[in-house]
């Protein structure tokens, strides 16, 4: 078997066309899984919860967006770490490309949570551990983006943002375990191994929407990173060649 040199794809020149080819695939996967997931959420899962009525339908987007907001941050921190260890140019670009979408999902987790909290808890917001740590996650994303755009020199920006991403990742387990460590209005984790916490159709719906958002994130982040590559490598011969061939 031929040995694949993975570091080859850490060079922007070979990553750029590859990323361009896979974006439509991820976009289509996201769309299809999203439609199927919403179908399951509204047509297969129970019409209402015996306590919460129809408001429980918010779970099908609240849990996926909250998971994605944490997951994207971890991936971002891994890219930052990879950038520091291997000193690859692409790593920080990947972290940077993920941040806006992560911020978006953190906002949506808070938003859908507020709209779910009002009818079920009687309040839009409480300053408890789960909600507050998720809000901090949102601010960490905003801080990462702001820090990156405040530093002119790309190498220094990469270093500073990488550090922030790595330090901030400590917040993610705090969010996840907050509902177990502190008393809160928020319910415990929706998914547990070896333990049934919800009906199959609900679980399937939530997982389908999560995978849809996952592929959406990959597609969006790849488009963003391609823009960044083009911008940063505009003085190189491979970009010039792409432009002349009309393949940018």
């Amino acid at each position, binding site marked *: 078997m031929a040995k694949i040199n993975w570091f080859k794809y850490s060079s922007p020149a070979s990553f750029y066309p590859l990323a361009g080819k896979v974006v439509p695939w991820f976009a289509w996967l996201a769309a299809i899984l999203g439609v199927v997931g919403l179908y399951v959420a*509204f*047509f297969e899962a129970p*019409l*209402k919860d015996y306590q919460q*009525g*129809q*408001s429980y*339908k*918010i779970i099908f*987007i*609240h849990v996926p*967006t909250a998971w994605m907001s944490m997951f994207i941050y971890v991936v971002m921190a891994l890219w930052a770490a990879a950038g520091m260890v291997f000193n690859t140019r692409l790593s920080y670009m990947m972290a940077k490309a993920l941040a*806006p*979408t992560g911020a*978006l999902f953190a*906002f*949506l987790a808070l*938003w*859908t949570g507020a*709209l*779910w909290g*009002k*009818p079920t808890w009687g309040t839009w917001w409480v300053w408890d551990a789960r909600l507050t740590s998720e809000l901090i996650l949102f601010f960490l994303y905003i801080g990462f983006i702001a820090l990156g755009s405040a530093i002119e020199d790309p190498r220094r920006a990469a270093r500073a943002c990488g550090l922030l991403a790595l330090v901030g990742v400590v917040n993610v387990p705090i969010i996840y375990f907050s509902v177990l460590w502190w008393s809160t209005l928020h319910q415990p984790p929706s998914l547990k191994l070896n333990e049934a916490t919800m009906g199959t159709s609900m679980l399937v719906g939530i997982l389908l929407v999560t995978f849809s958002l996952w592929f*959406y994130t990959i597609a*969006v982040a790849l*488009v*963003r990173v*391609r*823009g960044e590559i*083009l*911008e940063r490598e*505009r*003085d190189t011969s491979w*970009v*010039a060649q792409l*432009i*002349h061939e009309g393949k*940018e």
Partner: protein
Amino acid sequence: MSIGEALDMGKYSFYVWGSYGVLALCLLIEVISLRHQRRTIKQRVGRIVRVATRQENEA
């Protein structure tokens, strides 16, 4: 189950559709702004590269 029944959120309509609506809106805005951003970058970089090539050819 009819579509009407499945999508009837009763007294929770505002909360449920407020959640789904804002999610859809956010994703839509992100996709549109990314397209716009990408087009702008392509035009800018294209211009820079073409000018550089012309200068090289003239030199």
